[in-house]
């Protein structure tokens, strides 16, 4: 009986994989290949060393797992680079799916399509040792008094404005590198990133960086969830969702997350 069930499950899985392979047929930019876009540069730990082809890093690994689930061999995956603006501008796109920590929001969803979420990102507060020693604590009251900096194209700004509501208006930058420069220059006390980015920035880009705390994603009204971006009405979406569901159900997604984003434990929750 047990053998029979195993056989049945195997058959179903095999069929699902086969169906998924057929599902994407004729729906990609180039038949037989899946073109995936990432950032320029792509940041750690999402893509290691800015080389998604190496399959190193969370998003790179998810991309290859997804492609495999959809019936594309590793060789059939092509990488391109886009900025955020290129991803949302009207007109022809040079990618089938775009993966660069895009948070799913209702407004964005009107203009482009998002896959099912592949990661729920806790938002984390990154600051310096000096600020932390100066009395900053992972409480909302303490965070209010800090001078904040955020990246413009992320959902961090609404969180800072609405949840923290700081006393001084935050400064806004183009990318992580500029936020880091502003922290080094002492122009801001703290920045809000998704947790993996905060951990990387604090450990690698800053000499004196610390992650002060994280917001509990379970408690958030609209937790920040990353989705793969596709053009509005892209027929590929159902294939991507199907494959993502399969990856989630099989535990493969959690496995990849554990491999690349495991250091996330041990950061205190903000009260």
């Amino acid at each position, binding site marked *: 009986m047990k053998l029979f069930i195993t056989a049945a499950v195997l058959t179903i899985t095999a069929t699902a994989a086969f169906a998924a392979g057929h599902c994407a047929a004729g729906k990609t930019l180039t038949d037989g290949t899946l073109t995936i876009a990432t950032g320029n540069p792509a940041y750690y730990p999402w893509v290691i060393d800015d080389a998604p082809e190496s399959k190193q890093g969370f998003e790179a690994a998810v991309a290859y797992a997804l492609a495999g689930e959809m019936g594309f061999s590793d060789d059939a995956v092509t990488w391109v680079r886009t900025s955020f603006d290129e991803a*949302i501008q009207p007109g022809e796109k040079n990618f089938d799916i775009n993966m660069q920590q895009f948070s799913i929001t209702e407004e964005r969803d009107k203009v482009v399509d998002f896959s099912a979420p592949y990661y729920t990102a806790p938002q984390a507060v990154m600051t310096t040792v000096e600020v932390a020693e100066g009395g900053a604590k992972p409480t909302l009251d303490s965070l209010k008094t800090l001078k904040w900096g955020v990246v413009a194209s992320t959902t961090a700004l609404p969180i800072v404005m609405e949840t923290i509501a700081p006393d001084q208006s935050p400064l*806004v930058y183009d990318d992580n590198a500029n936020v880091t420069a502003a922290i080094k*220059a002492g122009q801001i006390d703290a920045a809000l990133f998704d947790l993996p980015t905060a951990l990387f920035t604090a450990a690698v880009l800053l000499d004196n960086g610390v992650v002060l705390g994280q917001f509990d994603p379970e408690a958030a009204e609209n937790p920040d969830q990353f989705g793969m971006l596709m053009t509005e009405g892209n027929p590929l979406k159902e294939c991507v969702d199907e494959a993502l569901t399969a990856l989630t159900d099989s535990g493969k997604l959690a496995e990849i997350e554990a491999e690349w984003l495991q250091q996330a434990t041990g950061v205190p929750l903000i009260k």
Partner: protein
Amino acid sequence: MSTRRAAYEARQRRRANMIAGVSTFGVLALLLVLVPLAPGWQAVKASFFDGDVFLRTFPGLLQAFVLDVAIFAWSVPLIFALGLAIALARGARNPALFPLRIFGAVYVDLFRGIPVVLLVYLVGFGIPGLGLPRPWNSPYIWGTVALVLTYSAYVAEVLRSGIESIHASQRNAAICLGLSERDTMRHVILPQAIRRVVPANMNMLVALQKDVALLSFIGPVEILRQAGIYKSLLANFTPYVAAAIIFLCVTVPATRYADYLLNKDRNARS
């Protein structure tokens, strides 16, 4: 009483006006008809000309624009003061002041040659990074410094060209009247030179008004950044169009006013 020639000229003018009107109308009509026929027009329209997004974001953008105006307002006097000083340094005639001339030339070469945005980054992040305490490391201060450095180099060259355009006879006449070198410059050369380069300097001011937006790269949330924030939250480029309209509302009247002043000045002198 109109002569035959005046009547002929009036007829010619009417004809020219009519042709100009018809051709302008034709071009506009073609644009209005042809552009919406492009296959991607609906997508472009939804993404750049969304009425709802426009109305939702316009008040916020206008509020952010106040910061642009403020930065502009405090930069302009600094730019002209420094620009004039550099122009005078470059024009120094006393041999003992030769180092000043060299300094002026190097200053202009250096700051006119570096892209503004690079200087904004270098000065805006670099100098505060040396360890200045707050509030002296503010991006507003150092961003302004970057703008002043670049634009004073341009303005210095404009002023110098104005000073050199004043005929030597003016200087000689002033010397004959017994004016000192300093008074010659102050009361004879500069008033004429500055008036002569008003259009070029207006150009500088219009360019500066737009380049103020570059300060957003080092943190301040002015109109361009505010538009970028809206763009990323709404995934729609309409806020940029709204920002462009706000810019035009300021720069176009400013340019027209400068033209008006110039014409008035020219008419008064002729």
